[in-house]
């Protein structure tokens, strides 16, 4: 299973964090620090894999963003690269030529898309269209202002 998925910029600023194992805030911060340090310091022309504690770390850079996942020993690293790529494609389809700013300003949507793609550290849906379709349909359920104000909260 995937233990975590992190997105961070080349300056080490966190843009997204998804955790699939329970960790304290402190432990999460440590992981983020370690990941950003390890990944950002990798020399060019090295593989996309590294070992960290007992996890395989797979990372890939897309423009100014690094996508970084922590996997179990028995997971397939090459497939993880495909998985990261699929997520980027999904973001791209939803936002239209996605860039880092889109994810900064619409982080909650990036999460909604992620939650239709992965769950509990495993891939939930392998169809390119189904994920985007679900998110968009769910979007329609979000109330307009009028609806929001008129609906009782509880």
């Amino acid at each position, binding site marked *: 299973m995937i233990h975590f998925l992190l997105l961070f910029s080349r300056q080490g600023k*966190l*843009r997204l*964090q998804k*955790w699939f194992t*329970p*960790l*304290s805030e402190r432990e999460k*911060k440590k992981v983020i620090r370690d990941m950003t340090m390890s990944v950002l310091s990798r*020399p060019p*022309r*090295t*593989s996309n*894999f*590294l070992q960290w504690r007992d996890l395989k770390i797979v990372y890939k850079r897309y423009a100014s963003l690094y996508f970084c996942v922590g996997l179990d020993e028995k997971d*397939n*690293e*090459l*497939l993880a*690269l*495909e*998985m990261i790529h*699929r997520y980027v494609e999904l973001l791209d389809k939803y*936002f*239209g030529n996605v860039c880092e700013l*889109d994810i*900064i*300003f*619409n*982080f*909650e*949507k990036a999460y*909604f898309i992620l*939650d239709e793609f992965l*769950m*509990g550290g*495993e*891939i*939930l*849906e*392998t*169809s*390119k*269209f*189904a994920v985007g379709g*679900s998110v968009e*349909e*769910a*979007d*329609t*359920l*979000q*109330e*307009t*202002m009028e609806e*929001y*104000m008129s*609906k*009782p*909260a*509880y």
Partner: protein
Amino acid sequence: MMTNLSRTSFTILDDSSPFLASLRLNMPAPIRLRELIRTIRTARTQAEEREMIQKECAAIRSSFREEDNTYRCRNVAKLLYMHMLGYPAHFGQLECLKLIASQKFTDKRIGYLGAMLLLDERQDVHLLMTNCIKNDLNHSTQYVQGLALCTLGCMGSSEMCRDLAGEVEKLLKTSNSYLRKKAALCAVHVIRKVPELMEMFLPATKNLLSEKNHGVLHTSVVLLTEMCERSPDMLAHFRKLVPQLVRILKNLIMSGYSPEHDVSGISDPFLQVRILRLLRILGKGDDDSSEAMNDILAQVATNTETSKNVGNAILYETVLTIMDIKSESGLRVLAINILGRFLLNNDKNIRYVALTSLLKTVQTDHNAVQRHRSTIVDCLKDLDVSIKRRAMELSFALVNGNNIRGMMKELLYFLDSCDPEFKADCASGVFLAAEKYAPSKRWHIDTIMRVLTTAGSYVRDDSVPNLIQLITNSVEMHAYTVQRLYKALLDDISQQPLVQVASWCIGEYGDLLLSGQCEEEEPIQVTEDEVLDVLEGLLVSNLSTPVTRGYSLTAIMKLSTRFSSVNRIKKVVSIYGSSIDVELQQRAVEYNALFKKYDHMRPALLERMPIMEKTASNGPTEIVQTNGETEPSVVEPKHPPPINQPASQGNDLLDLLGGNDVPVIQTTMPTKPASAGGELLDLLGDLSLGGPAPAPAPPAPTSQPPFLLDGLSSQPLFNDIAAAGIPPMTAYNKNGLKIDFTFERANPNPNVAVITIHASNSTEADMTDFVFQAAVPKTFQLQLLSPSSNVVPALNQGTVTQVIRVLNQQKQQLRMRIKLTYTHKGSAVQDLAEVNNFPPQSWQ
């Protein structure tokens, strides 16, 4: 570019219509989410950002206090953004729960997101979610159900899982594929948290694989995999699914282009890989299942497109499966060859996984992996650190007697140029491989030298004693070794392990260095002074550690019996008698004492070391005592073998005597740890010094002064009064040579009998080159210490004494065979005898 966002920009998160503001009695609406993000990003310093955040947090807190339903959603969203920047957001936890409980979808969406980010199972507050989730699992809108399943499946605690497993199980049976796939992964999470609940999901798995929907198929395979991994019973139960899985996989491969699942020409690689992984688990150890999947594996292995990463990902998984199940050998070779091809791939990632996989298979399919040895060795030159490391590990695994020379060349080259983080492991690996497969002793020594000189400072501490032991055992290479080490010292004295080994060797074999006996290469011309210069240089150099200094001082001392520059050595030793370093000082003081008072003992004490036995390659061996700290001080319990004869002499005795109840002479080193004072005691106690002929009467405690270094006589020190009653005996008396035995019991071990032989010569001519040897039955252990001399003077003018220690654990009757050789009146004499007349007290 926000094409899909037009609708949502009018939600509560972003609306800024004045209508809303007016509802709130002229209080300003909380700043919009995107507005806040924009504002915070304008901060130029960390301090500025912190100030903005604090201000906004204060506003949000008061809004929460007012129980504002309208803007809760917006405020929590902002809080989540600030949380991502690293600021505390725990005061929003309860607000998330309120959002989850709301009827509005927008609220729920943000609320569940907040719960997943801010809440965790360690805090009790998360349990408050349970009821909301339960309700939402039964909601009429599938997207609400989806939110609940997602949250439960990502961060549900064991208690929540227990409470809600039933709901999940229900949803696992629904025909709604959107919900079914989510329920499947939620079930996986439940099982991970509460494995006992696995059973309850079994019925629902019945027709999971008949689904057409890929999402459901994929998550079902994940669920089945989880169950099979956790329970052998489940594994056995699900084996029957193999044909179905094979069919699904086949369809994926054969099916035409499917736009929604296609990745570079391959249909749903994610599902393919998961199926391959499940097949691996099901086929492992099971002949039938393995056979059933053989064809499809071969098909995937041969037909998958390898030009893109996705194809290689599938091949990788296929190879892992082939290697793990009971596949036929042809398929296994195919798999290894795929890995071999991977190694040649330009893509580093592919080379990396190939090396990792080969490392896993090298034990079981050694020969097949050997074929790719040269490619693997090439990977040592890769720039990627992870690849280099794996290539190194794999290279060591592939070394064998046939390729040792070639492999070692590559590995030594690697050692020269690799990063420091590798050097220690590489050096250890080289030593191990060299020890196992060295084609010749010379090669072995050369290899060790190479490692010490190129990576000398990275070599592990335990290598030093191991190497010393190795060198002692390569008797014929001593001259060559010491010469090479000496030359290395002339070049560089900074690498401590090298310096320590070199000092030890020069101390031991310095005489060979001088005499220029080296056969292997041109012997160097060196004087005693030059050698002593080098060793003294180590003592004063700032580069030398205290341990190294200890080695070199002892080496200098040893040379006092091998060189003639005794005065120079005496001077050095006396200088260090006042050294600040306590260890060095102690050594110097004791060596000084050796010069002053016990000069006659010096040659025996500083003799050549015997061949050391290695009891275990990693465990504590005698060699541990020869570690820098305690080695090789004079005060070590070095009991040299009988009269410097190598062990083969013992075998001669065996041959002569025949029979199988006569064991080899035991000359093992005692395993007592070397501690200066104590050992000196033992040493001197056991040595009998040539002196006036001792009375063969039982040694009574004499009026010897208590200080043990003084007043040594031929009386052994171990005076156990209780054992004093053992009468002495004559063991041999022939041709003028008489050998008497006197006995003690050793303290503290009463099973050890200490026998002192007293050899006297009643003829008119001396018996020179006198050698006494003894053998005892197998149940005994015997230790022969150094004789006082090897000349038995004529006409009973003196005796040669020698101590034998016999361990008689089984309290059997002591018997002994002895062999005597000496030169008398110009001719060599040899005799054998049995000694059976031991007094009963000596062995009871």
